[in-house]
């Protein structure tokens, strides 16, 4: 299998599906001639024309609202939000409209739309180009929320998201775009939404995480392996719905659990994973469920020292894992 970056896998996923399915189109700021600020749509306007790869005005509610209408009238739109931080003006269209359309119409209408947005920090993006605000949507019934950690998953999940009859939020860790490489088949394949993946097997501590933090967790797990502790790393991939079965299975098997994410912890994905474990694994637990994530501050600052302070590093994880191991 050819090796590709996370970004290439995403671009290829869109390109291939647009070749296969005329209904797929992209609407977003700078997706045309510029090919997106990260290059995700590079070359697509040239191949598919200005109507299927449309530069949008600077108005996120417009981008999502128009995609909703187009989706209801037979298209399969992808709304690209330039940075996840800027999805806020579109929250009404996403949460009040897209998420509730099928339910409120008693299955008469659906919104087959993908909203793509890069998230996460560590790239000196400061307060508004570094956030991880996925939690805001992970509690919203009617939405599916996906975060791939590998190029293989990125393409396979994205293709599936484009084929889904309902709205899918597809969040891409921007630090992964060029730094994460992996094997990606050239041909058509999909990865099922709603399932977690085992990124590493182990039976001492179960680590639950997603996005680029999967790689951080793997690194920390290797360090512990040197001392004979085997961590299981579960890549959640699907943040809504969470793969409860996979979570419970790994937590029960290991008896010790660390949940980690880049986002701040309060009322987040980590809270829900923790709550699931507390509900369903009580008799299997050998230690308190531990969580490591961003601090409770509004966002990641710009100055290098402050940004570093924010981020969950392999060191921080390692320390937490050793504590858990010793419990």
């Amino acid at each position, binding site marked *: 299998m050819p090796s590709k970056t996370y970004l290439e896998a995403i671009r290829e996923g869109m390109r291939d599906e647009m070749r296969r399915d005329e209904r797929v189109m992209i609407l977003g700021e700078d997706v045309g001639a510029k090919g997106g600020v990260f290059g995700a749509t590079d070359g697509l306007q040239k191949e598919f024309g200005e109507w299927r790869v449309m530069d949008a*005005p600077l108005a996120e509610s*417009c981008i*999502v*609202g*128009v995609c909703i209408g187009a989706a209801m009238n037979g298209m399969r739109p992808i709304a690209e939000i330039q940075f996840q931080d800027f999805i806020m003006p579109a929250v009404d269209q996403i949460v009040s409209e897209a998420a509730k359309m099928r*339910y*409120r119409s008693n*299955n*008469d209408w659906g919104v087959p739309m993908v909203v793509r947005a890069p998230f996460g920090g560590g790239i000196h993006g400061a307060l508004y180009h570094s956030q991880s605000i996925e939690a805001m949507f992970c509690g919203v019934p009617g939405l599916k929320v996906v975060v791939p950690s590998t190029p293989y998953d990125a393409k396979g999940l994205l293709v599936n998201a484009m084929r*889904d009859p309902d709205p899918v939020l597809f969040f891409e860790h921007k630090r992964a775009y060029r730094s994460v490489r992996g094997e990606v088949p050239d041909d058509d394949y999909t990865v099922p939404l709603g399932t977690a993946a085992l990124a590493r097997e182990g039976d001492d501590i179960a680590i639950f995480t997603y996005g680029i933090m999967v790689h951080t967790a793997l690194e920390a797990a290797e360090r512990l392996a040197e001392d004979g502790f085997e961590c299981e790393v579960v890549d959640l991939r699907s943040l809504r719905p969470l793969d409860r079965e996979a979570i419970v299975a790994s937590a029960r098997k290991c008896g010790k659990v660390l949940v980690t994410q880049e986002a701040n912890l309060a009322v987040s994905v980590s809270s829900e994973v923790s709550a699931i474990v507390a509900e369903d694994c009580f008799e299997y637990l050998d230690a308190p469920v531990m969580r490591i994530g961003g601090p409770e501050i509004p966002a990641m600052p710009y100055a290098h020292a402050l940004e570093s302070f924010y981020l969950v590093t392999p060191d921080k994880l390692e320390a937490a894992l050793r504590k858990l191991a010793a419990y």
Partner: protein
Amino acid sequence: MAVVKPDFANREGLDVETLRAMYRHMLRSRVLDERMWVLNRQGRAPFWISAMGHEAIQVAVGMNMDPARDWLAPYYRDLALTLVMGMTPRDHLLSALAKAEDPNSGGRQMPAHYGSRTHNIISTGSPVTTQFLHAAGIALAMRIRGEDAVCVTAIGEGGTSGGDFHEALNFAATHKLGVVFVVENNGYAISVPLEKQMPTPNVSDRAVAYGIPGVHVDGNDAIACYRSARDAVARARSGAGPTLLEAKVHRLTSHSSDDDQRRYRSAEDLEAERKQDCLPRFRTLLEDLEVLAPGDYDTMRAELVAELDEATAYAEAAPDPLPDTAMRYVHAEDA
């Protein structure tokens, strides 16, 4: 049967059938609307939000659409418009009584939250203004596929204060999409009068901002409504782009069955508006034109009431949704 006086017919391009159909649509909406209030006062329908006073523009717009290919993104006052598009009093009574069979939402939404895939009427939620962007998206899909179809969307003047109004007009105008943006300006957003909502009297003035035609019309004048709706729909269909079409209407009832407008409006105002009601005015015109012969009105009304009685009986007998169906259709189920 009467014929339209030639000068009128020629001037307006309207024949007897069209004129009678217009009036019949308006009356059908009105008698249904009246029934809803009765059911509400009887405690049988907990909520109603009325189209009374808005019928002329709605019927005018609907009659210029082609239900086979055109689309509607309505708002909650568009009872008459949904009827013209093919929905029935029975459909809406099933909704008012929150029955499982309600085609709008299966009893999930409040009444007057319209929607029907069969009739190209997209499902309406409560948040105002969002539908304007959906209309732009619907028309974008038409444009991409090269269809000569039109999407109509409607809103109250209150809803035009929201950001989505601007974003939708801007997008649709930029790409010359086939949308008719209808504003039913009744001067109030619940209790907030126009002058506290916006600085100018006409929403249609905003068309200048988007380089599109902005038209305002007396919403109590059915013929004027028809004329401007015809132009706007034709323009959209021709590929020339959207129109902002504003009808000055009166809200002849309180905002909804939960509101009492006597708290914030004077009795004189309400009385004055009632006198301009589009229905009697149109009826008088049609009688003057001899399009409606003596007795026609009574016959028409009796027919409509009979239809309504049947629909009411049907809806009342229809089963409620079963409790655990609440879990269904969060996502597509056949996937």
